[in-house]
């Protein structure tokens, strides 16, 4: 009997405020506690969803050891108090962890294996610095499988400036300043706060506190203030802490459901998963990944770039966003791109970022019934790009 794919919808998303790694908000807070808080809040915000109806808890983390280990999806489900019958697993595609958790579990819904899933990610880069515990195979270098610079993300960003000589440091800085401005405005307009769940933070010295908003944004950032920053990856280079996302801690989660099940349970259907695509690129220019991933996706769907009304692109580095925009002939300050700012201001806790892009896109969709399609896209370490195409369930253009 031929199998019919089911429509998959994004029901809801929640995240902790993002923190600065190191001495920031979450310095003494566990990663698993953060994702547990997110899962519990998703359940609270969606009381129509009986917990036993959740068929999978897919949680991403790049470094899957310590409090991000122990099959984080399963342990978080137990710690969150979901019924023991609800399974879970851990997933890793570096920066695109949560994005992959969504595509993988969402594909499971489309296939008919699941009705409802929770997908998300957590990364505490303070407790788990990038590269913790890795043991790269010596063949990478002996056989020149990848360039030595491929494992340091900042170096790959410098490499990207080499590949796109028209993307200057000034353009990157200007992009970064706009990202900060857009986040500041979005905060002032109350656009970001609805996605946040306040999180208890512990500090031996300061006692308990409550994280209620993102810690990384630096409102008031100017070209001048960025100009003097060091370029840690290359002497007289282009990539600075100001035009890149920082090292951050945070957790995100979303509920996905088959569209008919969402209707049955009275859950909201904020946007529809149309398609997704992952593509590999040379690891030393991993930042260009969203370009072929998006090309592949648009080609398969028979869409052009102009059909996309909203772009949520992860801002690991300004240069990587600009490379994408330049490739598709989109202006650096195009209003369709990251309207409420991005990771340069908000932060990029690796494996959790993908779902942040989605929850912002879903809220933008709600405000823009004139837009039918939107993309969430990210570059991924080790040379990949991932793009997810979403359809606005509020779209009125077809009526």
């Amino acid at each position, binding site marked *: 009997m031929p199998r019919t794919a089911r429509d998959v919808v994004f029901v809801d998303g929640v995240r902790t405020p993002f923190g600065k790694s190191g001495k920031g908000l979450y310095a003494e807070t566990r990663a698993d506690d953060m994702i547990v*808080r997110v899962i519990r809040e998703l359940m609270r915000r969606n009381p129509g969803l009986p917990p036993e109806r959740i068929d999978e808890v897919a949680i991403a983390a790049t470094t899957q050891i310590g409090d991000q280990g122990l099959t984080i999806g399963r342990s978080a489900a137990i*710690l969150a*108090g979901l019924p023991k019958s609800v399974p879970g697993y851990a997933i890793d595609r570096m920066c695109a962890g949560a994005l992959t958790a969504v595509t993988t579990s969402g594909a499971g819904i489309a296939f008919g294996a699941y009705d409802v899933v929770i997908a998300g990610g957590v990364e505490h880069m303070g407790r788990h610095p990038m590269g913790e515990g890795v043991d790269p195979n010596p063949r990478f270098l002996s056989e020149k499988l990848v360039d030595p610079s491929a494992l340091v993300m900042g170096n790959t960003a410098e490499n990207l400036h080499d590949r796109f000589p028209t993307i200057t440091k000034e353009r990157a800085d200007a992009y970064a300043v706009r990202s900060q401005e857009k986040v500041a405005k979005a905060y002032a307009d109350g656009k970001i706060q609805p996605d946040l769940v*306040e*999180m*208890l933070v512990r500090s031996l010295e300061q*006692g308990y506190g409550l994280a209620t908003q993102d810690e990384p944004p630096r409102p008031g950032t100017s070209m001048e203030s960025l100009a003097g920053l060091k370029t840690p990856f290359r002497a007289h280079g282009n990539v600075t802490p100001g035009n890149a996302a920082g090292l951050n801690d945070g957790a995100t989660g979303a509920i996905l459901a088959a569209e008919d099940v969402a209707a049955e349970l009275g859950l909201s259907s904020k946007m529809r998963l149309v398609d997704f695509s992952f593509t590999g690129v040379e690891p030393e220019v991993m930042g260009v990944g969203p370009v072929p991933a998006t090309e592949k996706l648009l080609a398969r769907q028979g869409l052009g770039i102009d059909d996309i009304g909203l772009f949520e692109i992860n801002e690991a580095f300004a240069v990587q966003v600009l490379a994408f925009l330049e490739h598709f002939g989109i202006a650096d300050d195009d209003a369709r791109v990251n309207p409420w700012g991005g990771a340069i201001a908000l932060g990029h806790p690796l494996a959790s970022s993908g779902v942040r892009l989605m929850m912002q896109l879903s809220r933008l969709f709600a405000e823009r019934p004139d837009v039918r399609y939107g993309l969430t896209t990210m570059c991924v370490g080790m040379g990949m790009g991932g793009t997810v195409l979403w359809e606005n369930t509020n779209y009125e253009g077809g009526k």
Partner: protein
Amino acid sequence: MSTAIEQARELFSDEVVTNAISRDVELPYGAGTAVLITLDNGHDHTKPNTFGPGGLLSLDAQIEAARARTDIVAVAITGKPFIFAVGADLTGVPKIQTREQAHAIGKLGHDVFRKLGELDVPTFALVNGAAMGGGTEVALHCTYRTISSGVPALALPEAFLGLVPGWGGTYLLPHLIGAEKALKLIVDNPLAQNKMIKGRQAFEMGIADAMFEPADFVEESLRWAAQVIKGDVTVERPEVDKGEAWDNAVNMARFVVEGKLHGAAPAPVRAVELVAEAKNRTRDEGFAAEDDALADLIMSDELKSGLYAFDLVQKRAKRPAGAPDKSLARKVTKVGVVGAGLMAGQLALLFARRLDVPVVMTDLDQERLDKGVDYVHGEVDKLLKKGRINGDKANHLKALVTGSLTKDAFSDADFVIEAVFEKMEVKQQVFAEVEAVVSPEAILATNTSSLSITEMASKLQHPERVVGFHFFNPVAVLPLLEIIRGERTDDAALATAFGTARKLKKTAVLCKDAPAFVVNRLLTLFMGEVLGAVGEGTEPEVADRAVAPLGLPMSPLMLLQLVGPAVALHVSETLHEAFPERFAVSSELAEIVKEGKTAIFAPDLTIDPEVKKLFSGGDQPSEESEILERALRALAREIRIMLDEGVVAEAADIDLCLITGAGWPFHTGGITPYLDRAGVSEAVNGKRFHEGDPKAL
């Protein structure tokens, strides 16, 4: 604050200060800014938060800082992970020398805590973990309380130690939840082996206004607080009955306290009276009365004994005096139990549950063996029914406990304990049979209550492996385990015995191989003095009542009934044989046993008429006070002899044995602190058992 406080601080110079740390939090729903105070002494949960003068002043400073602010809408207070706060720091209490100092400590607690109920903004206690005594009282002073459903213990245990919850507890709690429920916490639970309640019970009793799950307890509590502040949630509490119900509850508590203690311990009485008076007192009056009560009680002998007893069971019990180095202990992977009687069954169940290793019971008679194994399986089923274990665990435990008609089944056991008939030849025979099948290192343990370990081991090839392992009935209830070293017992066997005791969660005390060891020797002596008085012509009811002023858990004749007249007679004969000049054998008891009486009391708790007849005869009755005195003098003399003989290392071990093996009370500190303070030690032995205040370590 006053110089008394400064003096108090010096007395508490070793205080591990629980710091109050403030941090602003933005409440959800735009409710405004709150100050969140965390109580944290900087250690993990194994060293809980407590309040000494330093901690109180730290909290005071934070409350004052919050009071000075006009930009906050609330103050919330919570603990560190797993611990809210477990009460006053008691380490400095023994050093308090004057009533003024004691009064100052009480007053300081009030002066600080009461501010939590008297700020311009509402205060919220977020009880995230264990809360006891002063910790519970901090919460009571707040305007509102939330509690985690994961809180493992909440209590006002002061009366258990010899104090009253005098930092507001006796006043605030009855006004919050009514006198009846309050007295349950303030008096009933402390007097019931210091029972504690869990978070859910505290919520159901009305102590907390809201309950949240532990996973995000503080966040959800703060959300709730925000809703309360905004008026979206209204806290409704049932009105407290300040009429007859209050008086009835107080009268009932008076009755219970008198029945249990006969005036032996002042603290519970004082606590009840504070609750009684709280009905018509103002806050100021109530708190002042608590200050006075604390000042009196802190200076009391009963509290000193209580703190000593607390340290005995909390600290000394964990480091048994004279136990060899742990590293010498051998592994126990299988246990043999010789015998299938009631005691053997209790032991088999305990070993299976705690050691999680196979346990084989043996008996010569198939029917008895089946009965023994069935008993254990039945007990496992009871645990299952009560929800203490699940089905898998029940299956596992049942599979662990098996029976065998031959001792071959012991061949791979590392620890074999016998619980057969109390006769030397029988036990020697059993050990010889066991030795024939087990490895040379296997421990042979005996649960004998009065026979010589050395003699029992004397005919074995490896006498160095024999230890005494004397449990107290009921095994599941009484923590004490007397571990007896025979003359030839080696360190490895002894270390294995102590290691096993630790896994069994028993309080092990090392005893010399002396007749009847510690508890039975002293209880037999004590009971013997009472029976002696009966034999001389005192009415048994009078003699039985004579020792009531000690506040023991049960009267001597009730104890006699529990032990069983036959067993009691047997032990007293053993002791008489060993020490004929000090231990008499009651001819009346011998008669009772001969007549086959197993109970002393009739079901209505009056003395069985037939027993009473057997008790009558003598013509030299004693006054109650004379009987008490002779019993205490006998104890003082015997304990001194035991210490001189080296039966245990120190007087503290005698007290630990009496508390954990016979349930003797905290307010007497076992018995030696009482004998010292009553002047009996000095009168009988010419010296006290403790120089100055008793010390547990």
